[in-house]
């Protein structure tokens, strides 16, 4: 499966789609989006890349094994719950703080939780797709 159009297109599409997925992830709290959709979009981006350039190449671009992402994601989600716990609040209670960057940006443990969801979704999807495609 080598198509010049597809392989050239995906080279540019991959970063764009990843950017979109991160946008979806970070804005999900206020507008449609979130960790799940973001994760699926990111996984689709890598899947597309795998179709165009082969799984080996996609794995190289991903830099790490999908299972690492799954573990990392679960730990991140858990950590976001534990943060509330060590501040003597119930497990998984959302805690918020506002960070003033050039624009004001609210940062909270639910965001971190969503990052965990994102990572798990990317990891799970890619683990399945890569192993199906390689087989």
């Amino acid at each position: 499966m080598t198509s010049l159009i597809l392989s050239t297109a995906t080279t540019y599409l991959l970063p764009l789609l990843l950017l979109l997925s991160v946008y979806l992830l970070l804005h999900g709290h206020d507008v449609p989006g979130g960790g799940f959709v973001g994760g699926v979009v990111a996984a689709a981006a890598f899947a597309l890349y795998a179709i165009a350039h082969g799984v080996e190449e996609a794995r190289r671009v991903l830099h790490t094994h999908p299972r690492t992402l799954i573990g990392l994601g679960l730990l991140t989600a858990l950590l976001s719950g534990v943060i509330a716990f060590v501040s003597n609040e119930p497990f998984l209670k959302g805690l918020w703080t506002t960070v003033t960057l050039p624009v004001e940006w609210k940062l909270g443990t639910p965001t971190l939780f969503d990052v965990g969801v994102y990572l798990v979704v990317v990891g799970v999807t890619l683990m399945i797709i890569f192993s199906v495609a390689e087989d």
Partner: protein
Amino acid sequence: MLIAVVSGFVFSLAVPLLHRTVRNVTDWLVVLLPFSLFIYFSFLTQPIAAGGVLSSSHAWAPSVGVNLSFVLDGLSLLFAILISGIGALVFLYSSGYFKGHSGLGRFYAYLLIFMASMLGLVLSDNVIALFIFWELTSLSSYLLIGFDHERSSARSAARQALLVTSVGGLALLAGLLLLGEAGGSFELSQLLREREAIRSHRFYVPIVVLIMVAAFTKSAQFPFHFWLPNAMEAPAPVSTYLHSATMVKAGIYLLARLSPVLGGARIWQGTIVVVGAITMLIGACLAIKETDIKRILAYSTVSILGVLTFLLGLGTRAAVEAAVAYLFIHALYKAGLFLVAGIIDHETGIRDVTRLSGLARIMPVTALAAAVAGLSMAGLPPLFGFIGKELLYTATLQAPLANSILTAAVLLTSALLVAVAGIVSLGPFIGRTMTLSEKHGGVPLTMTAGPVVLAGLGLLIGLLPNLVAGRIVSSAVGAVLAQPAAIKLALLHGLTVQLGLSGLTFALGVTAYLRRDALRRAVSRFDLGTALGPAKGYSLTLDGMTALARLQTRILQSGHLHIYLFIILAVTVGLVGSWLVRYYGLMRLEGWADIRFYEFLTALVIVAATIVIVRASSRLFSVVALGVVGYSMGIIYIIFGAPDLAMTQFSIDTLTVILLLLVLYRLPRYARYSTTLERLRDAAIALAVGVLVTGLTLAATAVPPISQISSYFAENSYLLAKGRNVVNVILVDFRAFDTLGEITVLAVAAIGVYSLMKLRGNGSDG
């Protein structure tokens, strides 16, 4: 105190990594943690002995009454000191025992998890937290017994220990929930105040039975005693730490902790005395029968656990004093002897006592430590064990009833244990010097430190008993009796009946030791344990369950995906459909006029695409048509104002198509495999499912929502959770716990798919 418990868990995560990078430092770091905990708890003996109680509480799930609340009183303190002190020695010992073993990092991690859970167990004031720590100790015990997981005997022993203790764990959970119901609280300190209400509550008997099952399985009481000797598959440090000094005493701890709440009734005291007495006799007899040094020690531990249970059952002041002192004494000498057994095994590779002799010349320091610990076990002055034996006889002589029978039972047990002490701590070291096959380089200092320190403490406390009497023993006894106690221990009381009994015990024990071979043969002849014992019952139950599972699998699992789907769908349609018809009758569809043109068009596209999927002559057509269905669904979501759903639907559909394309050319030729009749049957069930789902949707939208939950979410999404996207707020905040569960399931599913894809065809039977 939260830090004291949590530090072990946190550290256990880091240890495998540390061990891989800075190996030499890790050996010392893992000793440092229990040692600093030991120092911390030692400094607390003064305020606790003065009558203080230390407590701290952290909310966990306060809505269901579960908190991480910790209380340190005399009983907890005694356990905490044993756990951290012996822990430090065991970690030190492990670094020598496993020198150069590649799995040492993993071993440290398990052992740390165990230590932290055990500390949590004895410090918890909340019974649900106590239960969780209890299960964590069972789990870490499983991992540690099965540490050498390439041997099948280690694996089956680990599984046996886990199954037996988790039966107890389930009983414990049920018992504690009932207890919480009866007492109106999950906090032990609260329950203590409600004891009258609990004792007269209708749940009292079930609570007592369940709690006792839990305690008896954990502390290897008859008829659950068989798992402990088998657990000797574990490496020596584990046997020392879990299966003699600490974990197996968790059941004793539970009985002691709850006796102020539940004790006093005949069912409680009576059952505990009888079970304890049977266990101590059986344990002592079986210990004589064995020749493997670790199994001998394991059975003698069973026997001592029986003694402790028995004493708690008696429940008098003298009995509780004896129990607390004996618990302490036993932890010191038995841990020492287990470490010695580990050294012998490590250096000679032999565990059979009939083949070991003359080791004193090869390992003099170890031999000395073993001899001192053995003397404490035999209960000779001036060791701590002697004081314990005097207390034990005092307790049985003062027993409220049948004191002569009880004293005789204790006398017999103790005499047998004197013989056992001789077999394990004297036998291997005297006599003709063995020739060791390998060149021997001396026992490393890290390994001898443990037995020497523990035996030395036994001697020191024997000589100066009031070092611990006021500070540790009194407050522990006070906690069990729920009233202050001031105890003075002394080595000699003059010429008393107890002294006479001690002398008699020793004389009998020495006779038994000298005629040990004849005794072993005699006990073996009367051994019914292997033919009819509870261990046999365990294996029969296990085999029975496997057979049952195999039978029902053969009936229900045909292996055809097609049939599975058919059964699942047909059952769903049958059950849900009949209910729907019963409650709603047949529904009439109204409001056709409200359908707008583009809604109708989208629906039409979906139906048309579905027909294409089914009728398509090539697989590619089907896949594309499936995509059309998915995207049209997305459009419907948009029309009805659910952009989140639509977006998810679009992206999922894209992924599905990609996935299908990937597997497309790997599938067999696209052809008809089923007969027309089968196809008609499948069509019928598919239609039925469609009708059912339509009906369900209509029924769900027809009834007004009962709860106001959706408006609550909509109103509070921004106020409470600072998010304008309600769907996302529900997922990551209001219902975050559910989401956490879902992503965990997702991860497990991925691992399943991965192993199916990658490991296919490697196993013998899939």
